[in-house]
């Protein structure tokens, strides 16, 4: 791999690194796992970079490779032991005197999202990233109608988790 390619890649990734951090935030729930996944996505992005032709935006392409890595390539089974997240731990402490503040609601929401499976998380992630259904369908490789249907199901599932 030549230096110029390396340089352009690292520079682009440095600029758009928040996307990767956000993927990590949804798919992991502690500091070490976050860093591990960040590194794995970085490696996969770098491997795929020679194939990136610039016909998509770099950030759009990052969403795809990042999500695919989180969904499929990353070995996280051993890290699943004892991975109570920040959100969750904070939630437990304060849940005793629960009040209906926005803060509390957010913690519950993040906790609920963490209970979704990898694919559902991907849908929520793209939704949170303000992607429209066309973009979601392109990133996930499914039809627009399908994306809409799936998203509605995920919403229902979230509601069930929040109000059992």
């Amino acid at each position, binding site marked *: 791999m030549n230096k110029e390619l*390396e340089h352009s*890649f*690292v*520079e682009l*990734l*440095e600029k758009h*690194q*928040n996307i990767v*951090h*956000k993927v990590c*935030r949804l798919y992991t729930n502690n500091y070490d796992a976050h860093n*591990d996944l*960040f*590194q*794995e996505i*970085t*490696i*996969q992005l*770098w*491997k*795929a970079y*020679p*194939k*990136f032709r610039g016909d998509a935006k770099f950030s759009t*392409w990052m969403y*795809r*490779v990042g*999500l*695919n*890595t989180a*969904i*499929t*390539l*990353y*070995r996280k*089974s051993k890290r699943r032991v004892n991975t109570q997240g920040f959100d969750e731990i904070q939630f437990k402490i304060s849940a005793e005197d629960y009040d209906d503040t*926005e803060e509390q*609601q*957010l913690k519950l*929401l*993040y906790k609920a*999202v963490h209970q979704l*499976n*990898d*694919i*559902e998380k991907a849908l*929520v992630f793209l*939704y*949170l*990233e*303000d992607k429209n259904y066309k973009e979601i369908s392109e*990133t*996930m*490789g*499914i039809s627009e109608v*399908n994306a809409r249907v*799936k998203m509605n199901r995920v*919403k229902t599932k*979230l*509601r069930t988790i929040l109000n059992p």
Partner: protein
Amino acid sequence: MDELELLKKDWNKNGSKYPKLSYDEIYKMILKKSSSIVKWIFIISLLEFVFWTLISFVLKDTKMFEDVEHLNMNHILIPMTIISYIILIYFFYLFYKNYRNIASTDSTKRLMENILKTRRTVKYYVGFNLIALVIGTFISLFYVLKHDENMLSQVQQASANGEVFKIYAIYILVTLLLLAIMVGILLLFYWLVYGILLKRLNKNYRELKKLEV
């Protein structure tokens, strides 16, 4: 859904909360090793190959090997070994190719196809090893029954007593039993090693599949 809107608001205002990695930190990352599932399938298949090769070297000077040598089976054994090595090397190539392909996939659809391919390769690989074991055992058994002097004299003695069928039956049954045990051990080994690695791939494949319907 109001809740998701609330989450979205929070999600997007959190931009500054994430760690900010420097150019150098990211640069160091791309030099590091990957920990992906498919890469481990490739590495484990290589380790397994090294393990069996070492075993065959260790066994080279033992009595069992001398017995085999004594059978003069080399004209069968050598081509068989060469063929199986060629096939194994082809499998490593496939595992490596799967790894390279999956590592740089950018569409979920293609990812699914590649997961399927990886799964199929592992299945064929396990199948090949088991079939090679069964064929090898039967060829050896056949050879022992036909050409081993020890065996021939036993058969002669048995035929004098009218027990030829019995002695063949015993040999074949014992071999089948041993073979079944070996196949069982191998299956358990593959199930443990590759089964666990493939579990997550399979689970997410099913989820991806659901999206397709």
